[in-house]
């Protein structure tokens, strides 16, 4: 079946702009996670959704970052007033429920100029 998909695969923006990154989880997966992977680092947890609600957003670095999952499926990560330090690969993962294996998407590579 289809895996986790993320769009766009690459995004180049200018400092100060607003960006949206989309994640389509595996159908039926109730848990959805966002991670950020900076160059030379492992993925870093950002936020976890169980259904439509953000069950844990402790990894969001500041209030410029926000994520939604209004219908319990697709999720959008939103970054306001982007900074050069936001440049990274943003990974999305989903799992059947919070105890099951996470399946990762290919990521969105964000470059802030």
């Amino acid at each position, binding site marked *: 079946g289809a*895996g*986790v998909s993320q769009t766009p695969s690459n995004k180049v923006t200018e400092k100060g702009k607003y960006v949206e990154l989309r994640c389509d989880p595996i159908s039926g997966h109730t*848990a959805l*996670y966002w*991670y950020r992977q900076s160059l*030379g*680092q*492992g*993925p*870093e*947890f950002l936020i*976890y959704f*169980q259904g439509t609600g953000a*069950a*844990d957003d402790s*990894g969001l670095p500041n209030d410029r970052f926000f994520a939604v999952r209004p219908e319990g499926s697709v999720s959008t990560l939103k970054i306001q007033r982007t900074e050069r330090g936001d440049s990274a690969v943003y*990974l999305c*993962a989903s*799992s059947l429920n*919070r*105890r*099951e*294996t*996470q*399946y*990762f*998407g*290919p*990521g969105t590579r964000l470059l802030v100029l």
Partner: protein
Amino acid sequence: AQSVTQLDSQVPVFEEAPVELRCNYSSSVSVYLFWYVQYPNQGLQLLLKYLSGSTLVKGINGFEAEFNKSQTSFHLRKPSVHISDTAEYFCAVSPSGGANNLFFGTGTRLTVIP
């Protein structure tokens, strides 16, 4: 809080030789342990995981790992590597009593030399 240390950032090894990728973790609570692999231009893929039970875990592609609670380690091993094993390998932990948020190490780049 949880943290993961992968001491070796790069490991070169000849084809058909054995390999061990080291992983140590720190946690104030009990954890689940994972190894993920990231092939070039691909997403993270689960190799194996330890939740409970036998401390020796077998995964895909001939990899295995052993959980050692006293040494807080979860080293990954393969007796004979192939060119296709060239990739980035990440060790990760998650608290066993909560959501499945993963905490990753910085990764080990395995390069298999023909």
